[in-house]
């Protein structure tokens, strides 16, 4: 009996091997048949692998080490970084809260706003379309003109906002917009909103432009009564990919809010009011040179973004189908 069972097992294994071999051959065959695909993919993928994928793969394990960029190789310390982050680091816990506040304002709000603007602009005359697209995209093109916002929010009466408010008689003295713990967060949120519209907005504009105009004519015949119906039944369903792209861009920009806060409110900001997770990573990575810890922080942020992305693509996917 035992021998028979053994024989059967061997036979089974051989069968599995065979199918695996077959699979392998099939894959190889498919690869040969589609060789042109690989040729066309290669130019981009070579650079993509070298400068994006390999650095990311190299960076992932750094989170589990104690690495100060001077001592090679990095010392493996397991989950100590993550333990320290969630249990001992009060500033990190605070930064989660700040990041979430930023994410709520600059994520969904900015997403909805850029969609609304792209839609409204699409209804206008072609020349006006170009003009308004330019106006709303201009902040992204302006690059680092945070110095202007510093002029606007300046704490003395040279600041545009202070000057305007005192001329109108609303305030009497100069308000310390960027150093007062009560005002700094709203101010930075406004600037972040101003900056973050760019990529998603432009992609959505392109999406609107790509929609087949005859769909609307067909819609009118099918009994669509107003623009809201047009939006829900025709426009949004045919813009799935652009909506997804804008969502991903918005997730990235809202979770990685950092540079605006740092250049406006200084570093570190009053009471850590605009200290986000990314700022914390910057602090440990480039100020204290604790790359291991900084990397662990980035890893946690990455997981959060991944979960968020999965969630949104599920919601959008359900809506599209």
């Amino acid at each position, binding site marked *: 009996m035992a021998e028979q069972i053994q024989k059967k097992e061997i036979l089974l294994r051989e069968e599995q091997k065979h199918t695996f071999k077959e699979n392998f051959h099939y894959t190889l065959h498919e690869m040969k048949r589609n060789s042109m695909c690989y040729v066309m*993919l290669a*130019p981009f*993928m070579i650079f993509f692998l070298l400068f994006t994928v390999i650095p990311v793969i190299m960076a992932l394990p750094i989170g589990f080490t104690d690495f100060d960029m001077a001592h090679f190789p990095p010392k493996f310390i397991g989950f100590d970084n993550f333990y320290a982050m969630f249990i001992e680091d009060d500033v990190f816990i605070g930064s989660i809260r700040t990041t979430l506040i930023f994410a709520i304002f600059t994520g969904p709000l900015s997403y909805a706003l850029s969609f609304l603007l792209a839609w409204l602009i699409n209804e206008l005359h072609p020349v006006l379309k170009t003009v308004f697209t330019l106006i709303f995209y201009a902040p992204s*093109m302006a*690059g680092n003109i945070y110095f202007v916002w510093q002029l606007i929010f300046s704490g003395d009466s040279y600041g545009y906002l202070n000057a305007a408010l005192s001329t109108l008689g609303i305030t009497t003295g100069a308000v310390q917009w960027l150093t007062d713990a009560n005002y700094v967060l709203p101010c930075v949120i406004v600037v972040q909103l*101003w900056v973050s519209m760019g990529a998603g907005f432009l992609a959505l504009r392109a999406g609107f432009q790509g929609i087949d105009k005859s769909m609307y*004519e067909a819609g009118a015949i099918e009994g669509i009564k107003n*623009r809201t119906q047009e939006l829900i039944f025709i426009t949004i369903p045919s813009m799935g990919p*652009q909506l997804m792209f804008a969502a991903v861009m918005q997730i990235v920009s809202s979770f990685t809010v950092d540079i605006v806060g740092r250049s406006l409110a200084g570093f570190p900001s009053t009471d850590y009011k605009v200290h986000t997770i990314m700022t914390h990573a910057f602090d440990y990575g480039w100020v204290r040179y604790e790359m291991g810890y900084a990397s662990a922080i980035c890893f946690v942020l990455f997981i959060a973004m991944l979960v968020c*992305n999965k969630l949104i693509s599920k919601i959008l996917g359900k809506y599209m189908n």
Partner: protein
Amino acid sequence: MAKKKDLKPSEIAAQLEAENAAALEALRKRREKEHRKMEKSKGTNKRVGKSWKNDIGIFLLLTFLGLFMIAPIYIAIVTSIKPVQEIFIMPPRLYAMDPTGDNFKDLFVVANNSWVPFSRNVFNSIFVTVTATVLHVVFACMASFILAKCRFPGVKLINKIVVIALLFNSTVTYIMQYIVMANLGMINTYSALILPLIASSMGLYLMIQSVGQIPDAMIEAAKVDGAGLMRICWGIVMPNSKPAIMTIIIFQFQAAWNSTGGNLVYDEALKTIPTVVQQIAAAGIARQGAIAASAVVLMVPPLAIFIAAQSNVMETMAHAGMKD
């Protein structure tokens, strides 16, 4: 109504006929109504709910929001043409009383007095930006067509990696990038400035998303006609993805134009305009006028590309004559 099995065959037939007649009548009525509607809307506008009143409302709303978006840029421009004594006036004014080009002149004088002639930096910037943009757009177009429309082993995995790479934003990756480049001997060369820009996954992702919208039937038809993948890509898919291509040209040009090279380049002769401007602006508040002027100067090329690209995006009748 009586149950069907209780009725005689002839009765069932009569009932069915009556039902059919009613349905036909309803359909005819609906068609007539639609026809009348069409007649009414003919000559004015085919789209529903479009009126000039609506348009003016939208225009006013957009103007209001647009003012908020454009105000800081306006202030930057005004600051750049203010003479020094006006910059520190109190309260600050929203216009220049005595506009001058001194700030711009200062900027170029300082830039020309540095170690290498400014023309060299201008050449570097243009060379890097144009090469990086052209190569990125060409490569991303080909790759996006393959990733969105072809089925072969590994395609799903690559698509996933592209999205994940988009989300992975780590301060640590820069060091790893440096290590990779050092091993390839690229530090302090033009390659260090250009090559990482080509691999931006944002443009590729946008292209994949847009190419995915093109009907498969279109590509199948071309295949049946004997067109190769290259031919399909450049002859059929890309002309139909024009808005997306223009968008990635804008993104990429801007990213390349503003790239400084960071620690990857230390030779003065290889530095681009933004790096030089940063060095000039590092003087702080004393050069506020020059900082504003440099911001304005740096804004011009992306603006030109943006306007050129946008006016090139025709109201494309994408996928016209080909419906899924």
